[in-house]
């Protein structure tokens, strides 16, 4: 029994022209059994910063609570929102704190930094950051996602085209993974608005 494959998950974040998209599947399972088909894997930190947690759901929930707590404290002290780069460092630090008893999660962080420049990154369960210019993936369907994103990605996509690309990449990848799927949840974030959409894919 692999601990990272206990609940099943799929996460992807992609960069577009002054925008980004972050998407996840919706399945919550316990190994072979599906418990729910409306599980939220992506959370908002503030209007320009989203993050998703793949891996063990209990650790994802604990980490989410700790991160929201730390960001709220930061907001009180600094009187402003955290930049995505700073948040990524915070997540990395929190994960490495538990180096010899880690959280079994892989975060995907996506945000709009200074001058509306999109920022995405992922890290492993002990906080090793991976910055990328195009896309990042995580979860049980990550290998399929790498292939799908690599072939479908184009530079400087507008929000509508980015949404189509991310959705197709996500759905085709989770269809090859039995532990993730049951629809998709896509957030497309531009400097002016956040569009949240639910995808209906193969419901199995």
């Amino acid at each position: 029994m692999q601990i990272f494959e206990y609940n099943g998950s799929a996460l992807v974040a992609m960069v577009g022209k002054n925008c980004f998209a972050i998407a996840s599947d919706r399945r919550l399972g316990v190994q072979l059994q599906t418990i729910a088909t409306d599980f939220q894997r992506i959370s908002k930190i503030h209007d320009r910063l989203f993050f998703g947690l793949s891996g063990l759901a209990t650790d994802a929930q604990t980490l989410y609570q700790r991160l929201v707590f730390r960001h709220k404290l930061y907001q009180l002290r600094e009187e402003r929102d955290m930049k995505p780069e700073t948040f990524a460092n915070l997540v990395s630090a929190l994960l490495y704190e538990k180096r010899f008893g880690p959280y079994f999660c892989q975060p995907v962080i996506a945000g709009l930094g200074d001058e509306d420049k999109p920022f995405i990154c992922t890290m492993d369960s002990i906080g090793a950051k991976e910055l990328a210019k195009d896309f990042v993936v995580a979860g049980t369907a990550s290998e399929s996602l790498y292939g799908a994103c690599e072939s479908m990605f184009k530079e400087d996509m507008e929000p509508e085209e980015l949404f189509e690309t991310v959705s197709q990449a996500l759905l085709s990848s989770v269809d090859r993974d039995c532990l993730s799927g049951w629809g998709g949840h896509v957030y497309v974030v531009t400097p002016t608005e956040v569009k949240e959409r639910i995808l209906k894919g193969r419901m199995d």
Partner: protein
Amino acid sequence: MECVFGLVGNGFAIVAADTSAVHSILVHKSNEDKIMVLDSHKLIAASGESGDRVQFTEYIQKNVALYQFRNGIPLTTAAAANFTRGELATALRKNPYFVNILLAGYDKETGPSLYYIDYIATLHKVDKGAFGYGSYFSLSMMDRHYHSGMTVEEAIDLVDKCIMEIRSRLVVAPPNFVIKIVDKDGAREYAWRESVKDAAVASA
């Protein structure tokens, strides 16, 4: 094996649990009540390690009561569920409780709700949930017959269908079940479904 399942209906939530207390091949008793009344409008149906089950649910019950004494108002179902998850999560990496919980409650503002809480502290709000080997049968039965806004009669009919399925298809099927309901009038025992009665205890 221990079977616990529950569902949300129109203005109420129902949970059912088997009532066998088993140690290895021996059935100690078959009228063990595994659904605890947490407070006036909450039920906690627990399955798992017997010592942990009793200890943990009593601990939660007493802390929920303490909150009400200290603050003068009862906890909402969501708050109680999150508190329970917090306790399980804190203990997880020290001294884990092997208890799976279905927490059903009724709040005046939000109506009935059911929370699925795994032994590794995965929390999710659900319309129908189940634990144990019986879940393979009861979840499928509920997937087929459940619809939102069921009446009490329809829900009890579905619960009976699930119990029938468990009795006929599970090799070590527990003989007896207890059904409890929570609605605007409070949490209370609804019925027992017995096929084996314990012999009466001889008086001294």
